[in-house]
Structure formats: C-alpha cells, structure tokens
C-alpha cells in the first residue's frame, strides 16, 4: 500500500526521535495509523483476513523496531491483529451457518476427497471460536485436525458462492467491521481514565494519606475523581527525580483543593509509615504481573512492602503487555541524556575525554524505568476493575490471541 507508507515512515521517525512519548499518546497514534493502514488496504479476492493481518503485521514490525521501549506500540498492533482475527471468524461463522442449508448438494462431492467425516456447521463454528482462545487443556486433544477442517471449509465456502458481487460485499463488510472495531479501541484508550477513576472512591477512604511518585495522568485523574466525590484525603508527592514531574502533579492537585505535601524521593522511606496507600502509574504491565514504571518505583514498592502499605498500580488496558520481562533492568530500559542530572558547565572538567586512556573519570547513568516484580504489587486497577498480579495473564488472554504473542511460533506450527 504505497499510500500509507509516508504516514508510516513519518510515525516511525517520530518514534525513533522520541518525539512521541508516553503510553497513551503512542497507543492512540498507533491505533489511528493502523486504522488508516486497514482502510487503505486493497482487499484481494481470497484470504482477505490473512492479507490484512499481514499488512498490519508488516507495519507493526517497523513501529516496534522504531522504539522497542514503548511497549504500547506492540500492544496495539497485537490488539488490532486480534480484532482482525475475531471479525474474520465471526463473519465466516455466520457464512457457514448460512451455507450449511444450501450446501447439502455439495456434500457428496466434498466427502469424495475427504477421509474425515464432514463436520456440521455448528461444530465448525464452535471450533472457530476455540481457535481464538489461548491454547488450553480443553483444546489440547481437540486441536489437531481443526485447522485443516476449518481452512478447507472456509475455502469451499469461498468457492461455492460464485457471485463476485456477493464476495466483494463480504470483503467490504470485513474491512468495515475491522475499522469500526479499531475505532472502538481508540475510544477505549481515550476513555480509560474515566473508567479507572470511577473506581477511585472504592479505594480512597476518608482522611487517608496517599503517596505517589512522579506524575501520571491516570493517577491524577484518579485522585481528582476521589476529590470530586467529596473525599478529603492528603497526598504525599515524591518529586520523581530527575524529571521532577512530581512538582507539576503537586501544583495540579493543589489547584483542585487537595491537601498536598511534596517530598524528595529519598524521603519516601521516612514518610511511608504515615501512608495508608501508595498509588502509582505505570509505563507497562508485563504478563507475569511485573511493572515497568518510572525510575525510583522499585524503591517505593520495597518501602511499601516493608511497612505493609498497599502498593496499587493504576493503568489503562493498553499498557497491558503480553510479553514476559527477560532481564528487564537492561532490556526494557532507556538511558537518557546526563543533562537531566548534571549541569555540563559545572562538570565540564570531569567529562574531559583527553585524560589518560580517553575515558572520562565521571560517568553518568540516567535510566528511565524501573522494574517492579509482581510480588511487590498489591493490586492493579485497570479500566475493567481491580486485579491481583497473578490474574494479569487472564486479561491478556482476553485481549490478545496466543499466536501473536510469540511471532516465531507461527512458522513451526503451520
């Protein structure tokens, strides 16, 4: 599709240059881009869903490679792939059910080259639904011949309705459905704040003391919502060095009339004994329930655990990542410019590259993210409600299809 390529490369460039940052912005723009990829995609006559998924996968690969740290990109690509699969299956299931009445005559010639007994339409539809689910014990024995039976029936369904007009309307319907579903996804990304903050009053009680680190829009909305429901509570804001977004949050909270105290990050442990609950945002939630969060979060989580203070993570479902963290401190991290930490003018003598063997004595490491292991998290609040870390896999199974998680798997199973 030559028409979307400029859009794609523009977004790739933006991602590479870190011009778009933050899961929400990235997720939203990815979804919008993929929507235009789908709408520009010219539908072929056969195997439309696979071709469409291929196009999305191709674009998705470029986007993920452009900024692998923004896990939201991959999440949205996988969500869209899942949507395509879902819409395709629902449309073929409807098609097959309709066909089964008319296909009686076809049956004889079909069973001629079939060793397997022909399956009835209802069974096939059930399998189509099964195919969407993650592999489970239940389908372990059922799985084997299903894919062949399904593809055969799908192709025969395609062959038997000879009218081309019918076919093109069907393909248009698939595309239309997919676009509509991506639209829903974008809405979902936009409304996740409302959905999450609706639950605020259930978690924040009268006269409680809340601690948070840095600034997260989700946390801000969450606290706003509690304030609007006439809860009175106090908030400790750890400033979140080196970006000091906590200052911004403190200002915003005070504007809404919330009693706010700013503390340094290093004062978290000193203050934690007075805190009733820690509420923080996240960059991404991994499949094991671990959290990728702004740097300093692990320290807060450990302090909270030491004093048995609930550590609550609020995050929209677009931050739910189906991957497992392998070596997250290194692989899922980004080192930012040292200028956040040091004033170059003052430290210029220490950074002199001409000393000794050409390496300066002073090194600056400025990582963006922390990995908080699942055992330190008490609760996740997403747009679908509160969940424990060990339950995250279940949400993931709902949002993503299993064969998109590990892309390599596809080549071996087929």
């Amino acid at each position: 599709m030559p028409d979307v390529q400029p859009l794609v490369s523009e977004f790739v460039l933006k991602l590479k240059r870190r011009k778009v940052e933050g899961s929400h912005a990235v997720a939203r723009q990815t979804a919008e881009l993929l929507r235009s990829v789908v709408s520009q995609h010219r539908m072929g006559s056969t195997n439309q869903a696979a071709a469409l998924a291929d196009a999305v996968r191709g674009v998705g690969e470029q986007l993920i490679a452009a900024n692998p740290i923004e896990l939201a990109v991959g999440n949205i690509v996988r969500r869209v792939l899942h949507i395509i699969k879902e819409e395709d299956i629902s449309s073929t299931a409807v098609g097959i059910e309709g066909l089964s009445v008319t296909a009686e005559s076809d049956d004889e010639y079909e069973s001629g080259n079939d060793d397997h007994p022909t399956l009835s339409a209802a069974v096939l539809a059930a399998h189509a639904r099964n195919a969407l689910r993650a592999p489970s014990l239940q389908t372990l024995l059922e799985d084997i011949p299903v894919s062949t039976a399904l593809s055969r029936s799908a192709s025969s369904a395609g062959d038997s309705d000879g009218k081309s007009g019918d076919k093109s309307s069907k393909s248009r319907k698939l595309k239309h459905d997919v676009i509509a579903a991506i639209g829903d996804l974008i809405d979902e990304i936009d409304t996740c704040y409302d959905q999450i903050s609706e639950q605020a009053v259930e978690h924040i009680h009268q006269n409680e003391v809340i601690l948070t680190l840095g600034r997260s829009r989700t946390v801000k909305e969450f606290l706003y919502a509690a304030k609007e429901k006439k809860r009175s509570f106090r908030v400790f804001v750890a400033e979140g060095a080196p970006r000091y977004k906590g200052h911004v949050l403190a200002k915003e909270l005070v504007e809404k009339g919330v009693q706010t105290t700013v503390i340094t990050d290093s004062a978290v442990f000193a203050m934690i004994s007075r805190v009733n609950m820690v509420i923080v945002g996240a960059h991404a939630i991994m499949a094991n329930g671990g959290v990728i969060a702004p740097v300093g979060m692990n320290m807060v989580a450990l302090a909270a655990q030491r004093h048995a203070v609930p550590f609550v993570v609020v995050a929209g479902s677009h931050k739910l990542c189906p991957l497992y963290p392998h070596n997250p401190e290194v692989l899922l991290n980004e080192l930012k410019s040292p200028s956040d930490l040091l004033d170059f003018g003052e430290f210029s003598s220490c950074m002199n590259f001409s000393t000794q063997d050409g390496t300066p004595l002073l090194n600056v490491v400025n990582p963006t993210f922390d990995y908080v292991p699942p055992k330190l998290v008490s609760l996740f609040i997403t747009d679908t409600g509160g969940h424990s870390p060990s339950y995250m896999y279940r949400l993931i199974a709902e949002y993503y299809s299993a064969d998109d998680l590990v892309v390599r798997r596809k080549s071996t199973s087929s």
Partner: protein
Amino acid sequence: MEPDASSAAAAQNPNPNPSTGPPPISAVIRSSRATTMMELEIELKKASDKLKSWDATSISLSAACDLFMRFVTRTSHLEHEKFDAAKSRLIERGEKFGEISLKARKTIAMLSQDFISDGCTILVHGYSRVVLEVLKLAASNRKLFRVLCTEGRPDRTGLRMSNELAALGIPVKVLIDSAVAYSMDEVDMVFVGADGVVESGGIINMMGTYQIALVAHSMNKPVYVAAESYKFARLYPLDQKDMTPAHRPIDFGVPIPAGVEVETSARDYTPPQYLTLLLTDLGVLTPSVVSDELIQLYL
C-alpha cells in the same frame, strides 16, 4: 464390558514410562464391541482405572488418562457425529497423543529460549526430557551458557543428564545433591522438569526439587519449571506426605544396621510460591494459571 478390553490395556503398557497414557486406551476402543457412546465410556473408564492401578504412583499417567476420559465425555465434536465416526476419531486422538507430547516439548523449548541469555549459568536437577530439549535447542541456537547438574541420587539421573549435555558440547559441572546451596550464588536460574503439576500450581518432582527451590528462593534466583500440559493433575497435596508415595531403593554403599529406618521416597512436593514461572505448551504460565486451566476443564 469385555474382560479382554481392559486386560489389553494393561498388557499394552510395555514400560511404566509416564507418558504412555492413551495409546493402550485407543487399543481398548479398537477392540471394543460397544455400540453406544455410553457403553464405550464405561469400558474406557474401567480400562483407565486398570491402567492407573498398574502404576499407581505415576502422576502423569493418571493425569493423561483423566484428560483423555474428559475428552471422551465432554467434547463437542463427538456429539454431532455417528457412533462409528466418533469412535474412529477417538482412536485417532489416542494415537496422536505421543505426537502431542513430542510437539509439546518442542513448543516448550521454543518458548524458553528467551529466558536463557548468553553467559548465564543454569542449575538442573535430575533427568528431564523437557529440560534436555530446552537446553539442546539453546545450544543449537549458539547460546553460550553453563549448566550445573546435580547428581540426582539415588538413581543418579543427573549423571545421565550431564552425559547427554556434555555430548552436545555444553559446559557441564556435576554437583552432589548437597552442594546446591554452596553453588547457588553462581547460578542465574534453576530449570526443573516435573512428574506432575498439581492444582495449587506447585509441582511434584524428583526428590530434592523442593530444597533446591527453597535455596533458590532465599537467594532470589528464578525457578522455571518445564512441563507438558498433560501433566496437570487434579491433586492438591497439602504437605509432603499427602501424596501416593513412590519408593525407590537406595544404595548407601555400606550396610545399614538393622533397626535404622531409611527414607526411600522418590518425590517431593514444591509449593507454588517457590516457583517463578511454568513453561508449558500452553504458553508461559504463572503457577496460579494451572488451577484455572484445570477448573475450566473439569468444572
């Protein structure tokens, strides 16, 4: 019920290898003269009970039998078909079971590759086909890693494992079972197989797995369990003694005086809180997923 059907099942179980669940069962179906699903089901139930009693200690055997029975009794496939078609489908599935377990090991090996990074040291305990497959694939992907192999007393399965690994050109070091804590600081992760994965998400495995998991947990090292999903069993052991005991003779090299008791249990139970992740053919799972899968199937 024909007596020959169930005895056929028992006779066709040539070795007490845990993963030979359903093939004999499909022999039962083939030799059965039942004319309705109900009859066939009763026959199968009897055959599988007999099969289980053949080796009452094998968890994966009984788990695989249960899984197959479940498939017979509730699969939506079979409802819409004529009896003969359903029967031939069941036979086919039974025969495919070996294939499923082979495919499962391949899937697990593939999923686990991300967990093995260059330069890491892996501790393994005893002999496990799945773990061997995992390490084999990692070696063929040119990953550089080192394996510490426990001896695996009393039957020295660890030595067998180390032989196989050495043959693949993987650097191996053999430890006596009691040197695990001593060596744990140089270990990056622990990989173990499982005889059975129980409903709590814990595992029943060769003696010594529990203490390795405890040591690893206290030193903050991840413990990964590689297990095929047909090993998920409907058991909920409450403690170490709450299992059908499997005994194994132990050769101490010196005569044990009369009146001294010997602990000959061959397996222990590792509770889920000491396991990091389960690598199965259903994907990478946290221990709590296991009960979820079992509930979905047997509810």
